[in-house]
């Protein structure tokens, strides 16, 4: 890993290299010890028996009856939630930037309210509400509840992403639009939003990771037949709890890893693009760490192509590229100033 000098240490000299090798050896030994301990514990409970892992290879019904339909439900719920939440989020986000207080305040309240409440509470509420006040079939009610909960929460998160996306554009765009006589609405619709959509894409894709993970909530408490509740069925039928959950985790990790990688690739591509302003929201902006509540100053945004050294390209570092606070110093949290630093209740 030939990396630029870290802020913490110099390039190692001969003595440091020897010491590093020693530490490496000790660390590997400790890891191996822990791995041995875990594996022998699993072995004692017969969890490593071939019979428990075989069904995933030999018995195609595990996949066709449980895992793949479960995965399909998970992805359907996540996809629908994102598609429904996007326009709502756009409306709320634009509402929060309105010049009129009677539009801005309600939008503020809605966004802050739904971000402060756990998704699970929203899902439980929606489930019961559909049971009492609608005639949605019992069978598909959990799916409606899951999607409703996810939409309410993610619309408010996406509202913040939309706002940050519009604010990340250079101020000259607004000035130029006004200079040629565009009205506020026209500026937003014809100039700012189209560019902001490009800037937001990476953040939206990585918000999809959060949504995919949150669909799992519906399975456990509402009985929605998604991947994890189907995994529970597999574990029950084949009495291979450890194996089943390991496979389920691997599926989730693969899906989310691909999404994150795609987001990082998009971000790098937009950043280097010749067209447009090069303004882009870091795909880490949407990470779960950012989904907090009111009162935390939003990280200010990267402007243009100049991602200052530091974090390595998003693609180079995999999903973790860039910390939760994003790239370099321009993201220094706590500034409160800058375009995204926003008012009293930033918190992207």
């Amino acid at each position, binding site marked *: 890993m030939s990396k630029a*000098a*870290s*802020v*913490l*240490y*110099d390039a*190692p000299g001969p003595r*440091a290299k020897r010491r*590093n090798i020693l*530490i*490496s050896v000790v*660390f590997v030994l400790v890891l191996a010890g822990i791995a041995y301990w875990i594996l022998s*514990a699993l072995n004692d*409970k017969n*969890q490593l028996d071939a019979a428990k892992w075989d069904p995933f290879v030999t018995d195609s019904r595990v996949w066709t009856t449980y895992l793949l339909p479960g995965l399909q439900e998970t992805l359907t719920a996540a996809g629908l939630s994102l598609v429904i939440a996007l326009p709502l989020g756009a409306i709320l986000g634009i509402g929060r930037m309105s010049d009129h207080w009677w539009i801005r305040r309600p939008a503020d309240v809605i966004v802050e*309210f739904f971000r*402060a*409440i*756990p998704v*699970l*509470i929203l899902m*439980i*509420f929606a489930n*019961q*509400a559909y049971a009492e006040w609608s005639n949605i079939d019992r069978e598909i009610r959990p799916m409606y509840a899951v999607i409703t909960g996810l939409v309410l929460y993610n619309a408010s998160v996406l509202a913040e992403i939309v706002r940050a996306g519009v604010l990340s554009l250079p101020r000259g765009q607004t000035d130029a639009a006004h200079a040629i006589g565009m009205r506020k609405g026209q500026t937003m619709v014809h100039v700012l939003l189209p560019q902001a959509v490009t800037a937001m894409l990476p953040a939206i894709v990585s918000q999809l990771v959060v949504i995919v*993970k949150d669909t*799992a*909530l519906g399975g*456990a*408490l509402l009985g929605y037949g998604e991947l*994890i509740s189907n995994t529970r069925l597999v574990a029950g039928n084949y009495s291979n*709890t*450890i194996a089943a*959950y390991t496979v389920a985790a691997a599926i*989730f*990790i693969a899906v*989310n890893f691909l999404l994150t990688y795609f987001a990082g690739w998009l971000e790098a591509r937009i950043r280097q693009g010749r067209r447009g302003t090069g303004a882009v929201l870091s795909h880490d902006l949407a990470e*779960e*760490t*950012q*989904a*907090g*509540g*009111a*009162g*935390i*100053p939003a*990280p200010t945004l990267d402007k243009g192509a100049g991602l200052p050294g530091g*974090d390595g390209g998003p693609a180079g570092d995999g*999903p973790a590229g*860039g*910390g*939760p*606070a994003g790239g*370099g*110093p321009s*993201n*220094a*949290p706590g500034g409160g100033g800058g375009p995204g630093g926003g008012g009293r209740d930033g*918190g992207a």
Partner: protein
Amino acid sequence: MFDFLDLDRYDLFGAFWTTVQLTVYSAIGSLIWGTVLAAMRVSPVPIMRAFGTAYVNLLRNTPLTLVIVACSQGLYFTMGQTLGGEGTEGIAFRLAVLGFIVYTSTFVCEALRSGINTVPVGQAEAARALGLNFSQVLGLVVLPQAFRSVVPPLANVLIALTKNTTVAATIGVAEAALLMRDMIEREAQLIPIAAVFAFGFIVLTLPTGLFLGWVSKRVAVKR
């Protein structure tokens, strides 16, 4: 309107107290484990960096629900590990805290690492040029700046953790979300009950956010 609030039947404050306890224990645990992970991820030893990176990427791409359910189903029901807890309730609580620590520490690690990365390399170079040794560079120059810039992301992690503790309901810890489900199933008062629980979580998260936002503004490094 609020006559469903029969506090003898429904232990509302007890449920929210469990939520707070879950949050506090998990926060302390994930701060410790997350710091260890962050130290690995920025260490000069490649194998430690690789381990830290792998752990963080694997865990934060796994749904929290899966982590918690696996703790209960795998660790307890299959392996018989009780973590020293007693009774169904106590064991579930400890398993939930373990799950939250395992998951949340990845976000703590990323927050800390991003804090270290916000310190310009020139700061450390200047410190070395002055003749400070490694521990002085770290203790006097780099970490004080890193800690200050780490407050907002850590505050976000804490708030997200507070909301995430509801996931413990899936393994039967008697916290707010589980009580809410019980109450709306038994009482025909959906809106008031939902309002009470929404209010409870706003009371928990909003002051935390406002306070830590204020702290982060006070300690921010002016660059």
